[in-house]
């Protein structure tokens, strides 16, 4: 038999409230992983793939135009030198424009390849992580529910021991949505045995929060 040293039964109730909040955050955080992956996958497949395909077509056209202009300028430069006509000193400006257009086109090509690679990588690396999140989500739901049930049981046992109507206390202390069946349910094995009457506290049993003296669990 061990000393309970439960000087404030509300400590269990307060911690239970934190456990319920924690469970809600876990569910919200972990269950959103699949949707998050899906959003990015759609963004890659629908938005970015289409965007860079269009960009590649557009930039290829710009490059081809720039290339034609450079070739014409080259011809003009050579022709002017041979015929001694109106001189076009150089095709350097057209060359610079063509090189810039080619770099832009190459960039679009690289982006398109990158989007395709990431679409694959998201499937290969992202899906297992989502599965992990879902697995932790299910396990945490179960573990938190068990923990909350156990806190309910402890709370009930303490108040039973203190001879305070627990239904009254629980309805006042806990949200209705989280109220659980009585601790006498056969579904969960109690962690502590019913408190022996012989070791009942000497304090006022009608005031559970009034720092009851040491109780003893079996």
């Amino acid at each position, binding site marked *: 038999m*061990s*000393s*309970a*040293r*439960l*000087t*404030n*039964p*509300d*400590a*269990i109730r*307060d*911690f239970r409230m*934190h*456990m319920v*909040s*924690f469970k809600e*955050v*876990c569910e*919200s*955080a*972990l269950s*959103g*992983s699949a949707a*998050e*992956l899906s*959003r*990015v996958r759609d*963004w*890659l497949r629908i938005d*970015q793939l289409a965007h860079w395909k269009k960009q590649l077509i557009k930039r290829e056209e710009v490059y081809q135009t720039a290339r034609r202009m450079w070739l014409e300028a080259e011809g003009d430069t050579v022709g002017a030198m041979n015929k001694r006509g109106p001189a076009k000193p150089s095709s350097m400006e057209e060359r610079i424009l063509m090189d810039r257009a080619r770099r832009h086109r190459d960039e679009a090509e690289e*982006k398109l390849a*990158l*989007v395709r690679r*990431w679409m694959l*990588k*998201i499937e290969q*690396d*992202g899906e297992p*992580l*989502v599965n*992990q*999140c879902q697995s*932790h*989500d299910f*396990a*945490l739901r179960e*573990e*938190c529910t*068990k*923990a909350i049930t*156990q*806190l309910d049981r*402890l709370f009930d046992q303490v108040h039973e021991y203190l001879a305070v109507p627990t239904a009254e206390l629980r309805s006042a202390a806990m949200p209705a949505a989280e109220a659980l069946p009585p601790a006498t349910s056969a579904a969960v094995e109690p*962690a*502590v045995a019913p408190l022996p009457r012989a070791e009942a506290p000497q304090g006022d049993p009608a005031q559970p929060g009034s720092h009851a003296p040491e109780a003893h*669990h079996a």
Partner: protein
Amino acid sequence: MPNVSGDDALLEKALKDLSAAWSRSSDGWQDAARSTFAELHLQPIEIRARHGAKAIKQLEALLAEAMRQCS
């Protein structure tokens, strides 16, 4: 472009808050049942939640990198 949720940080914070609440509860509750509860329920939950937060963090890093590179 989709936003990265930051759920890993939320989960880490929730874990920290739970741990702090547990420590505070020791002011009014110190017995064998508390130790048993910690061992059977709280510790597995903390371990599980840390693994969950890690998985979310890795997923978010992956998605953020995909968005950064493909924008």
